[in-house]
């Protein structure tokens, strides 16, 4: 690939899903009834959404570790580096797996709404925008593209009270947190005179004797509010309240996509924002580290304790995702060169195992509703052994049992927490993991030991797209646990590429 060409390619990871999504949106009315075709187009497009950043990531080493472009006139607004490209691949994977789950959902739902396909593309585009930039404005816009698409996707089951309730809750609280983000960005902008992370970083570095050139308090307050906004997106305690309700109410494919994708995107932004924008002064970085430590501790504990008392698997997985956000926050606290690869790796594994788990849940549907009560899972071993084993793999991985991926990623995070000098948090993580084992086991027990409930003895049919999802997720979860170094090794080069221009 030619160097110049490569520079033009920089915006491709975003442009591709965006343009494809818009085109798809155009063709939805025409192809409405050709369900298979429409879905096929969507899947094909999403595959390319994975291919584009993969191709770039493969080549990026030849051209330095990152490229920037505005798509226009050479102003730095889009940034393609190892972090963004790795995460872009992840978003594509999450989108693809979700797309594979969707047709079954749409067939079973009361109304067929294929608009959800282009919306998936748009939200993937939003994610890529978020992580592929150095500019707070772009981060905000990407987040909003993502959020708006997701609000709608949550609400596509608008005939069901739970679906619309989930959408409204997600919307109200999400918009609320957007308010915090806007105000936080405004304060950061005021304190440093820049919306650019690079500018903020240099302002913070040169801010002596204070922290920022135009107002220390403003910088800190802005930082706090931005952290709050993203803590909301990742579902950190006490900003997590929406998570269980929305995860439960939203259509399962959307939940899977949301759980994996949004979290990855928000963490990608946090990595960039905190580690490159707000780390150039130890006074500043120590403060957000403290704040995130508190959040991480609370998140790990509350997430796990709450998951303990859930009877619905989707809700349980929602709280488990809260708990995992806590572990991920722990990875965030480590210095850049230690933590980044671990966080991204964790996100990778988490994407597969959580989407896999939700995919299993999505099999349990009756009359358009998710039949996800824990009792629906009882006796799964005798009803559908392969499905039971598959779910077991995901649950064990989520628990952190070696050699599943969940163990490996938890382990590296644990290690980085120790490395970063947070033994207490590491200890809390250990305790939290012990609690976590308990509720995952409940599902396992139900699946393997309890007899199937009589009224549920209808045969479980796993549609073939869902099978693909399950197969991919299982293989990835296990392989990432057994041979993670093939992923971790390349990821460890991210930190170098995150460094700012001199």
């Amino acid at each position: 690939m030619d160097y110049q060409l490569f520079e033009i390619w920089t915006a491709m990871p975003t442009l591709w899903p965006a343009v494809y999504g818009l085109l798809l949106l155009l063709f939805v009315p025409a192809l409405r009834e050709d369900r298979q075709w429409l879905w096929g187009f969507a899947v094909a497009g999403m595959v390319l959404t994975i291919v584009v950043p993969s191709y770039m990531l493969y080549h990026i080493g030849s051209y330095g570790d990152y490229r920037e472009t505005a798509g226009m006139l050479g102003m730095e607004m889009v940034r393609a580096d190892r972090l963004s490209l790795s995460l872009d691949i992840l978003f594509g994977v999450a989108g693809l797996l979700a797309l594979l789950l969707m047709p079954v959902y749409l067939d079973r739902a009361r109304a067929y709404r294929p608009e959800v396909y282009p919306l998936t593309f748009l939200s993937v585009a939003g994610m890529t925008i978020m992580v592929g930039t150095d500019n707070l404005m772009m981060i905000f816009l990407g987040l909003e593209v993502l959020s708006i698409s997701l609000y709608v996707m949550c609400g596509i089951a608008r005939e069901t009270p739970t679906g619309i309730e989930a959408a409204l809750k997600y919307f109200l609280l999400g918009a609320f947190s957007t308010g915090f983000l806007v105000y936080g960005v405004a304060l950061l902008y005021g304190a440093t005179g820049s919306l650019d992370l690079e500018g903020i970083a240099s302002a913070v570095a040169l801010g002596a004797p204070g922290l920022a050139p135009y107002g220390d308090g403003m910088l800190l307050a802005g930082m706090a509010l931005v952290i709050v906004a993203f803590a909301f997106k990742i579902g950190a305690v006490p900003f997590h309240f929406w998570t269980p309700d929305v995860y439960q109410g939203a259509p399962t494919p959307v939940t899977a996509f949301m759980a994996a994708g949004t979290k990855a995107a928000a963490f990608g932004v946090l990595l960039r924002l905190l580690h490159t924008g707000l780390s150039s002064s130890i006074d500043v970085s120590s403060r957000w580290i403290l704040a995130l430590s508190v959040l991480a501790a609370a998140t790990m504990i509350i997430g796990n304790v709450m998951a303990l008392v859930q009877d619905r698997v989707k809700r349980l997985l929602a709280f488990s995702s809260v708990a995992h956000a806590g572990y991920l926050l722990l990875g965030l606290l480590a210095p850049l060169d230690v933590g980044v690869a671990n966080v991204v790796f964790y996100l990778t594994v988490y994407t597969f195992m959580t989407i896999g788990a939700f995919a299993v849940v999505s099999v349990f549907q009756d009359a358009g509703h998710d039949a996800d009560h824990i009792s629906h899972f009882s006796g799964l071993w005798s009803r559908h052994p392969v499905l039971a084993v598959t779910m077991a793999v995901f649950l064990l991985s989520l628990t952190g049992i070696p050699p599943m991926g969940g163990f490996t990623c938890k382990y590296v995070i644990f290690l980085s927490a120790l490395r970063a000098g947070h033994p207490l948090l590491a200890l809390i993580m250990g305790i939290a993991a012990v609690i976590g084992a308990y509720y995952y086991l409940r599902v396992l027990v139900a699946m393997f030991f309890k007899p199937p409930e009589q009224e549920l003895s209808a045969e479980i049919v796993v549609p073939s797209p869902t099978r693909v999802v399950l197969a991919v997720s299982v293989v990835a979860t296990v392989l990432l646990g057994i041979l993670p170094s093939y992923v971790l090794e390349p990821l460890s080069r991210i930190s170098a590429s995150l460094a700012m221009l001199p």
Partner: protein
Amino acid sequence: MDALLTPACCVALAAITAVEAKLYIAGIVALVSGLVVVMHRNSVIGALFLVLNLLSVAVMFALLDAYFMAVLQVLIYAGAIVVLIIFVLMLLNVGREPRGGPGLGVRLMALLLGLAMVFALVRAVRSFTPGSEDGGVLTEGYGTVSQLGEALFNQYFYPFEVVSLALVAAMAGAVLLAKRYLED
């Protein structure tokens, strides 16, 4: 009579020459109207006061030399968003909120937390000390359409396109969620 009184007030307001004084008045109007928005039990009244709030903020924009943004604020907020809100309010006829809000404890807690946050934020913004503000002169063409257009179509071209993405998503979504399908 009041029909004539209001323009008179506006004229009076316009006649105040000191920018600061106008700012203070607009700011206080904004705060009071904002308070009414959140306190009033009738959503339609709230929405109307939201318009007032937006207008006064727009006035503040204008006083801060951001004329174009002031116009856009009115155009987009008052002209589109709030009209939409009122439209829905009237369509559903849900103006009046049902009685019975949160308990006193929740109210009190929320109030305390809110005050704490406002306190912190006020403390934060008071720390704002831009370097050479008094000595400096305003950039030529500050706040004009051309300056903003220049920025939009050069430096911020890409985000500008992204906004359109958000709008398309919102449009498709709104149609998807609110349109009454034939099969319904």
